[in-house]
């Protein structure tokens, strides 16, 4: 039976992008011109996704569980057309903030290395993590170039003091020790939206903006745009197009001053999160 299926669908199973014809491919666009690094998205993610707080000790040993982090760099990148910044003793151009979470790579390096296939690619382009299947080999964590996979080094969720546990979101599970977890693009919200769309009779189309991820929803400057990259009308698709970033490339064919880029794109992992350059007024 398995053999028959294999032989019948051989060419299908041998092709690289198996989900080419699916109606959904979730993607994001984050405008670093607007991101102020406040951390609203981070806290929203804690609230939405049942992330445990680990406390000072565990945080110190690097066991924190924030799926989303805001990185803050000081250094001005090289080749910046800028003035008198080098000799200044202060970071006069402010900080460099970038929210970093799972980039939902289409060619995710974390996926093929899992010994039990606990992480795989869903038809709507998500890099899914099946908590129940995970045995905690942590290979995926090593192989993630963005280091956005978070491992439950302890049973954090059993230690939540009453009544804080009443806040836990029943739409998704809490994770036990020994399990890898990561940003899901709020898959529970995606599923709910899909179900709703299906109830309304359009299986292949969710109206753009009919739901948001928790981080996008809380972002005070609306720096985060999320949606379906296969939907030509979606804001995220338009943003990708406007900034000339194509999904299946490892080097974009565009001029440098068009702002779209993907972090570590050259590794050819095809991340689904596009960032827009931070902007500074060089005349100020």
């Amino acid at each position, binding site marked *: 039976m398995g053999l028959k299926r294999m032989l019948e669908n051989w060419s299908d199973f041998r092709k690289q992008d198996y989900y080419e014809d699916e109606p959904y491919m979730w993607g994001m666009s984050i*405008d*670093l*011109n607007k991101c*102020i*690094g*406040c*951390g*609203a998205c981070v*806290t929203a993610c*804690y*609230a*939405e996704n049942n992330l445990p707080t680990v406390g*000072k000790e565990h*945080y*110190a040993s690097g066991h*924190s569980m924030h799926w989303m982090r805001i990185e*803050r*760099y*000081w*250094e001005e*990148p090289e080749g*910046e057309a800028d003035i008198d910044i080098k000799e200044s*003793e*202060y*970071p006069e151009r*402010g*900080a460099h903030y970038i929210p970093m979470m799972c980039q939902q790579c289409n060619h995710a390096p974390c996926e093929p290395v899992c010994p039990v296939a606990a992480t795989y690619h869903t038809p709507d382009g998500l890099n899914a993590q099946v908590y129940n299947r995970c045995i905690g080999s942590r290979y995926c964590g090593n192989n993630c170039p963005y280091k956005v996979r978070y491992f439950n080094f302890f049973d954090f969720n059993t230690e939540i003091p*009453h*009544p*804080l546990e*009443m*806040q*836990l979101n*029943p739409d998704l599970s809490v994770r036990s020790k020994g399990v890898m977890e990561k940003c899901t693009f709020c898959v529970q919200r995606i599923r709910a939206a899909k179900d709703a769309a299906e109830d309304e009779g359009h299986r292949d189309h969710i*109206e753009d*903006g*009919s739901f*948001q991820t928790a981080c996008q*929803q*809380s972002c*005070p*400057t*609306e*720096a985060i745009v999320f949606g379906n990259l296969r939907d030509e009308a979606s*804001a995220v698709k*338009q943003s990708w197009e*406007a900034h000339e970033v194509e999904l299946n490339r490892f080097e974009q064919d565009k001029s*440098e*001053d*068009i*702002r779209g880029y993907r*972090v570590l794109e050259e590794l050819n992992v095809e991340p689904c999160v596009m*960032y827009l*350059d*931070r902007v*500074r*007024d*060089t*005349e*100020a």
Partner: protein
Amino acid sequence: MKSNKSGEQEAWSRRTFLKIMGLGSAGSALALTGCGDTDIVNNVDIEVRKEKVEPNVDPQDFVRPGIAIYYASTCRQCPAGCGIHARNREGRVLKLEGNPASPVNRGRLCPMGQAGLQAHYNPDRLTKPMIRKGGKLTEVSWAEAENALKKVLGRRNGKLAWLSGAVSGHHAALIRTYLDVAGSNNSFVFDTLPPAVGHAANEAIFGHAMPKYDFDKAALILSFGADFLGTWMSPVHFAGEYGRFRAAPRGTLVQIEPKMTLTGANADRWIAIRPGTEGYLALALASLLVEDARYADRVPVEVLDSIKDADIEAIANTTGVSVDRIHRLHQLLTQRSPSLVLSGSSAEGAEHGSETANAILLLNVMLGNVGKTILPRSKQPFPDLAPKLGGWSELRAFLDGLNSGKFDTAVVFGSNPIYQAPKSLGADKAFAKAKYRVSFSMFPDETTMACDLVLPIYSYLEEWNTAMPAYAADDGQLGLQQPVMNPVFGSDGPRGFGDLLLGVLTNMDGRFKKWKDYESYVMDALFTMRPAMVKPPKITVPGQTEMEAFRQGVLSTGFVRLKTASAGKLTAKVRPVQLPKAPKEDGGHPFHLVPSPRLGLWDGRHANLPWLQELPDQLAEVVWDSWVEIHPATAKKLGVITGDVVSVTSSAGSLKAKVVVFPGVQRDTVAIPLGQGHTEYGRYAKGIGVNPYHILEAKFDRQTGELATHATRVSVKKVADRGPLVTLANGDLVLESNTSTQAGREIVKTVSAKDFDRTESGKAATRPANKEV
């Protein structure tokens, strides 16, 4: 009230009644009707740690298993008063989201707002009333506590002093009503962060404490320490404004402050300045500007006289900002118009804070920003409901009263002076002098634990209320609060502050029986207010009473808009700049101390929320701790590296914390974040870090009497070698270099604003078009 002594049945005069409801001096005619009693709160019992399977066939009201219901309410985590939608499932509130209809936050919510859930579900919440017996606070029954409450507060007492945190809406009205009934006029409001000095300066110049700012129109924002993205008045609102300000054509932000704030981190140009000298820089700019007649014409002569011919070089020396930079700033101000000049807490936190604010705001007048980016306010229809943000001067009055024996009973609600106030103010000693101390509090904070009667109260997610935003995006907005779930700790647990106070009032005056609880009081008031509202809800479903329809309408919106008279033209009244001579250096205490608040722990009130403790500081990236920020050059001179423990000593005290070598702080300045150093306040806050306010010297702004928060001088000495410092970037590689270099990775790329404006003008796609749920 005082005139009505003739018995229960006697009706209040209409005027008095409106006053009680917080609707005094309302211009419009209001009709009085009874109140409805539709219970919109779901009635699900929450059995602790037990799963309850709900049959889908017969669900309880407003509960459909598996389906989330959203209740509109108002966030009370800071005075900004954002509208929220609380997501409720099976009787538990799970998530707070911004209310898209609210003009304050437009559907967005900051970390503190998100973390409101953890205040609500906090394991350290007080659940039982406590009475001090034999020197120790002991848990007692509600009956006993209510008796005690009746005894203490249920009588007329002119020596009663009431201290509350920033209040607005019907809490403010009810407190005022109570104090009227109790015959006390000792009402004080103290909140740490609202910029009282700035408000006073605004009031003086623009005629309103908080005129409306139009960021979108501004081509340039020059901010003297106004951390509008972080801790200034209404962070979510201003961040939203900032987002629009940054869209092409992109506005430019220049931030001038001694310690980089979140706003500074996002500035196009961040300029470090010695604390307390911002006024001189403003003066220098003004003096350069008035060389041009266009700007000089906008101010009266006596003001001109006070500013012209400033010595730019001397000012450059004083401020630490180079002459070149001052000229560049001047150029920028002349090139980009309209602009917006803001003054914030680091500029105002000096002994000459008011003068500084005056000098800064004067720039707006000169640049012609008034009426363009600074817009007038219309008159508030119900001043009793207006936000009262208070300040240090009120706290000082409260403490003075206690010290002098003028007050014998102290009531504290929503404020924590023993933690907040500098040791030099002697808050704990003054507080100890009161004969009897009562606290309405959710948490065992420092002040509460020093009281004799402690009454645990509802969280803002359990209680009915109204609130007015500290910075109103639209005039006349009144946020509504409703319980978004049944009380977490059940009927034996905490009680509503409004209910408790109304109970006391009912005992004092039988006519208050009219309202069986605070809910009916609030609803009655709102219903009464109906004619003053913009488009009050109408009956939509046949069979509905008007009250029901109204109630449903306003509660599902989460706020109401009151009719306001259209705002008049804004005319600025400028005063001459009178800055004192530049201060001398202090050899013994060579450094300026900046106590820096941040979006997260705020002034320390959120230190007990683990989400916020674990949210890294936006700049230093430290979690769960206090630290001292020192500039790299200074650190080199002092021989300290990140992680070393230093003692920071002022004339008022000393504290120890670990060093973070931090480039975003002025060289002669050390900054210590606010928020930690609690000695009480539950498991997540107690014993962590230090509170820099505790070592502030008792210096005050000369005009307003506000505490000069940035005027303290300190010395810094290394006391111990490097220990681990917990940061988001948890590694030694990062700490040792402390640059957090991108190592050539181009993780954050940057383009110039010129390129941005060229490539992105008119690109619709950059604007998200999200429809709200």
